[in-house]
Each structure stands twice: as structure tokens, then as C-alpha cells.
């Protein structure tokens, strides 16, 4: 009962949240919501012990696929978003054949190369990918009404509700996967790979599964982004963005489900709201970098370690 009440209060807070923000903060909230899905899906892959540098490019695969399906084939936007996720997952399966011949650092570099190949393909083939300029005029999510609320998807509040709903459903699925025997096997693949293999676990199949599922959700994130801003180009999914995803995961911590989400929320608010409001707009990269170094030095287990400290204390008392 208490748990249900907490969830209801949390839902109500999420519904009320955008109304307490300024217009630009509402815009940032939309992008933050999408980034939460991207970084959470990235964590699923890290459960198997592999860190990829292609995750943002795979997100772009979902964005391009969804944008092209709506623009060229007239597919209904929500269906195209789902298809974007599926195509991103399928591309990940194809990439897994060469990539999972490698492990650790070699996988990291291999994934970077694979991602760059995809980005170069987008640039090289102006038809159908639009080349360096990418795709513009992507169909927005069609407006609709549910009686008590009219969804106008130009407005960030409406898009936040839509994207927030999708992201919550995706996070719930990711959570269930992690808590399932499959999720436990992902952990085993990371920490006890020899033992798992000796027990009959197909390591490569499980790594591929984690890579494909993570990519599918990243693809949905990319599609959500594409249909909101209406334009994508190869630069939208470059290494800079990937570095942000990595720092959200590292600073937040990947030991818990909420760690990367915490990192994403805290660092985005810091970078996009606090530093801009304080008038440090042009010094943001410098200050952001300094805070990252400080957090790695003084919080080696990420921001999640602070939460764990407090929750342990309250459990003891």
C-alpha cells in the first residue's frame, strides 16, 4: 500500500513537474527524458562487462530509420518510432558478429570503428540519408486530444508527457529484464564468465542479446529525438554525445539501475541550467570538466554511492 502511494505521488510529481519550469527548462526536460532512456539502455550493455562507443550512433540508426519511414513511406509516427527501435536492434545483431569476436578494450575500439562506419555511410549516401546536412522537416508526432488534455506536440509539456510515458514503459521493461534470470545471466557473463560458460551459458549469445536489447531502446530514444526537433544529421550522433553518455554513466555509477539516471539528471541540470543561469555560459566546458575530475577523484563509485550511504544509514536506524 505504502509503495503504491509512493508511486502515485511520484507520478503526480512528474505530471506537475513541467508546470513549475520555465519554457526553456521544459525544452531541456524533454531532452533529459530522452537521454535517461539512452543512458539506462547503455547500462544494460555494461552489465555484461562490455562498454561500447557505438551506442549513440545506434541511437541515430533508430532516429534515421524512424524519420525515413515517416518521410518516405508515410508510416504513422508512433509505429515508425517502434520500427526505429527494432531496426536499431537488428543492426546491433549484425554488428555483433564481428564485434563479439573481441572483448574489453578491443571491443571498445571495435565498436567505435563500427559506429564511425555507420556515420560515414550517412554522410556519403546523400540519397537517402541526406549526407552531411542530414534529414530535415521530419514529421512531428501528430497532435491529438484525450478529452481532458489536448496534446500539441510543438509544446514541450505535451511532448514531455508523451516521451515520459514511452521512457517509463521502456525503463520498466529494462528493469524487468535485469531482474529476470536473463539479467542475472548478464551479470554472470560479466563477473563469472568462465563459470557461466562451464555451466552451459552461451556467452556470445547473451552478449549479443544485451547489445541488441540496449540498442533497441537507444533506437527508440533516437526516434523520440528526431520527431521532436524535426532534423537529424550525422553530427547529432557524434563522439561528443557519446562522451556525454559515458560521463553520465561513470559519474552516476553503473552498479545500480538508478545510478546512470542520477548522473544524467545531475550533470544535465548542472550544465544546461545552473551554469547558464549563473552566467558561466562560455566557461561551461571548463567548469563541467573540473566537476567531472573532482567527482571521479572524490566519488569513485559514482553519485549512487551517496544514495547508498544514506539508504544504508536509514535502514540501520
Amino acid at each position: 500500500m505504502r509503495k503504491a502511494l509512493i508511486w502515485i505521488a511520484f507520478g503526480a510529481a512528474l505530471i506537475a513537474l513541467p508546470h513549475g519550469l520555465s519554457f526553456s527548462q521544459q525544452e531541456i526536460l524533454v531532452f533529459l527524458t530522452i537521454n535517461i532512456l539512452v543512458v539506462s539502455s547503455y547500462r544494460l550493455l555494461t552489465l555484461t562487462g562490455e562498454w561500447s562507443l557505438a551506442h549513440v550512433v545506434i541511437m541515430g540508426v533508430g532516429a534515421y530509420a524512424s524519420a525515413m519511414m515517416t518521410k518516405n513511406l508515410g508510416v504513422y509516427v508512433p509505429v515508425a518510432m517502434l520500427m526505429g527501435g527494432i531496426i536499431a536492434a537488428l543492426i546491433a545483431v549484425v554488428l555483433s558478429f564481428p564485434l563479439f569476436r573481441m572483448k574489453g578494450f578491443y571491443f571498445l575500439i571495435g565498436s567505435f570503428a563500427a559506429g564511425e562506419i555507420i556515420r560515414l555511410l550517412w554522410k556519403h549516401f546523400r540519397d537517402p540519408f541526406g549526407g552531411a546536412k542530414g534529414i530535415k522537416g521530419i514529421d512531428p508526432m501528430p497532435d491529438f486530444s484525450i478529452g481532458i488534455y489536448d496534446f500539441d506536440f510543438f509544446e514541450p509539456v505535451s511532448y514531455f508527457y508523451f516521451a515520459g510515458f514511452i521512457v517509463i514503459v521502456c525503463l520498466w521493461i529494462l528493469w524487468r529484464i535485469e531482474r529476470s534470470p536473463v539479467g542475472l545471466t548478464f551479470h554472470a557473463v560479466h563477473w563469472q564468465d568462465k563459470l557461466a560458460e562451464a555451466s552451459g551459458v552461451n556467452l556470445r549469445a547473451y552478449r549479443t542479446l544485451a547489445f541488441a536489447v540496449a540498442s533497441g531502446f537507444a533506437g527508440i530514444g533516437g526516434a523520440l529525438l528526431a520527431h521532436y526537433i524535426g532534423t537529424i544529421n550525422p553530427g547529432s550522433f557524434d563522439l561528443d554525445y557519446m562522451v556525454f553518455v559515458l560521463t553520465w554513466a561513470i559519474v552516476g555509477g553503473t552498479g545500480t539501475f538508478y545510478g546512470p539516471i542520477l548522473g544524467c539528471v545531475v550533470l544535465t541540470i548542472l550544465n544546461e541550467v545552473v551554469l547558464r543561469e549563473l552566467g558561466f555560459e562560455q566557461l561551461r566546458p571548463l567548469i563541467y570538466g573540473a566537476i567531472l575530475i573532482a567527482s571521479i577523484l572524490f566519488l569513485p563509485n559514482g553519485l549512487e554511492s551517496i544514495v547508498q550511504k544514506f539508504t544504508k544509514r536509514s535502514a540501520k536506524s
Partner: protein
Amino acid sequence: MISKLRAAGLTRRTFLKSTAITAVGASMPSITLAAGEPIKIGFLAPLTGAVAAWGKPGLDGCMIWAERVNAAGGIELEDGKHPVEFVSYDNEYDPAKARTGATKLIREDGVSFIMMLGGDTWPGVQPVADKTGMLFSTLLPSDLSPDSTTLLAPAEVHPIYLVTGVDYLADTFPDAKTVVICAQDDALGLPSVATYLAAFEARGIEVLEEPLLFDPATTDFAPIVTRMLSSNPDIICLDTCYSDYVHPICEQLFQQGYKGKMISATADFYDQMIAKTSKEFMEGFIFQFPDFDDPALSGDNINFEDANGFYEEYAKRHPGQWGAVSWEYASIMDLWKAAAEQAGSADPEAVMEAMKEGGTGKHAFGDAVWWGTELFGIDNALVGDWPVVVIEDGKAVIKGFKSIPDWYDQHGDLLIKHMQAYNQMYDQRG
């Protein structure tokens, strides 16, 4: 009645658009100003990151412009004089952040006009412009299209002005007959490549191989330069490379012993380029953006007020920081101020109407015409003369002004041909 409205151009699309503008407009802050209240101008450009060199110096120039205007009493509208104030937002050259910035500037800060660099960031902002009717400016006319009715390109006619540099090169060095072009593969590089190809073809200069398009993430330019030099060209063309590319490419050209001519859209911070190479190596480097202490900018044909004084003040405050865009945003503000004073209002629609009245305007480098239907599908680019600049004895010197419309009248078909080949015509984009 309906047929009359249709005849006047009211389609389902324009009806829906105007309804949307009305609906969103209802939630917009009013641009009506109280007497003496500052007029806010939005500055939405990259202030950090790889493209910051085409944003930050422009903001610095605008601050000087605002101080000068405010010291002279401000901008005179119907209800009296108003000081001017710039509100900036760093879009990091990212369309999503540009959208957020445009929303903030319009809906929170209540700006009357927004200046942008444009390029990759404009498509992110366009829906906001469509919905709000806000007047925007870009430095890149390649953003213009019939759909972008509230977007103007009043300062820089990139990349069309590049033809003036090639004309100067061909006139001055008739023996230089072969060229190799390199450019970053992006929204700035590609239309430039098409323009240079047209300009070289117009003057009978042979392009030795396909333009070398490199990834914007490139940091090692040695292989690119080696490949360019392998065909032994008379001219190396650096297209519209960012300064982060122009500098290392020139350094590599110097180190690999290149002795021929060089032409580029920009040579931002060329003193640093000379320091990395040599004065002799950079002698004769042709580009398009003058230092404003040039005596040629004190002539009667120049509409930028006290260009030499502006440069002096800029150099005092930001030594070594003068770049291609240092004056451009300020020159757009000259046009905006004149139009607002003529209209007696800061209302975006009234200012735009006043700015385009008569189809002519006072561009920084002389009187110009609103132009662009063939290339951009809309006459929203202010085009006239453009200077050709050459480095002589370590200093940028204007060698003359050349007319862009005159060149286009003779060779426009070539430009359209190459623009089409690179999918850069307004009806091919996206």
C-alpha cells in the same frame, strides 16, 4: 469570398499556419515596449565548441555596437528612444540546443529579433520561427528557402561571395591554371565546394581531382595535404574550412614545401597562421574577410559606420581575436536599427517590411539588392559588392570590391549546375 481569399494566396496550409501563429502568439510575451525600456536582441550562436570562432567574436562585436548606439541615445522608435541590450544563448552548433535557445529568447526574454550563425542549427529553430513569426537572421543564405519567410541573410552571402576571390586570382595570376579543393563534409563545406567549382570553371581553371571532403572530426591533416599536393596544383583552395582546419592545413602545406597560391573563404587569426609558418609563405594568401582598420573601409561606399574606429576598439578589448564574424552581426544590427527606426517599432513584421522596402538595402560594403529567388526560392539575401582580401607583408589588405550580382548575371547557370550536383539547391535540401 473563399475563392477571393484563395486568389489572394490563402491555402489550407497558410490558414493552418496563421492559426497556429495566433494560438502560440497568445502565449508569447508582448514585444510592446514601455518608454525607455531596453530593446532586447537575441544572439543564438555557438559560443563554445569547434564552431565558436564564428559566434563568440560576433557577440563581442555586438557589445561594442550596443555601447556605441546606447551612448548616442539608443534606438528611436515611435514612442521615444530605447537602449539596446543583447541576450545570448550558446547553441553549441546543435539543433536541439538551438531550439531550446530560441524558445528561451522569444518566450522568456522577450527579444525583438534573433541573430544566428545558421547552418545545422537552423532546421531545429525553424518550427519555432514558423509558430512565433519571430524575425531571424543567418550568416548562411543556404538556410534560406520559400518556407523560411521570416529568415533573412542581410550580411554574409555565403558562399556566393567566394566567386570574387577566384575572379581576382584569375585576373592577377593568369598562369595559375590548376587547382585542388578540400573541405569539411558538412552544411558549410558543400555549398562552398559547389561555388568554387563554378567560379573556377567560369575562369577556365582546371580542378585536378574531385574535391577532397574530409570528416569534420579530422585532426590529422598530413595525409590530406599529401594527397592534395600529389597532383602538383598551382592553387590550393581551402573552401570554407573552420579555422581549426585552416590553421593545421596551412601548417602542413608549409611543412610539405608547397610554394603555390592559396585561396580560402576565411583566414581567421591569420597572425597565428603566420607565426606557425612564415610571413613569406603566407604572402599572397587570398580570402574574403577584411580587417576593419583597412583604409578602403573608410570610403563613401561603405555603410558600416566608422569601421576603422570599430576595429580599433575591438582590437583594444580583444587583442588577436578579430575574425570573419567580428563585424557581421554588428552590421546586421545596423540594418535592423535603421529599419526599426523607419518603422517606428521593434515589431518583427514591421521591421522586416521596412528592411525590405524598395527591394534594396544598405549592406556593410555598399548598397545592395534583396536577391535569391533562383538559388534560394526567396529574395531574402542582401547581395552587392564583396571585398577580396590578400595577406601582404603579414597584414590583410583589401585589393578591391567586386560585384556578386554581376558575376551571377554572367555565370549563374554554372553555379546552379554545381549546386544541383551537390544537392544544395533549396528544393533539394532535406
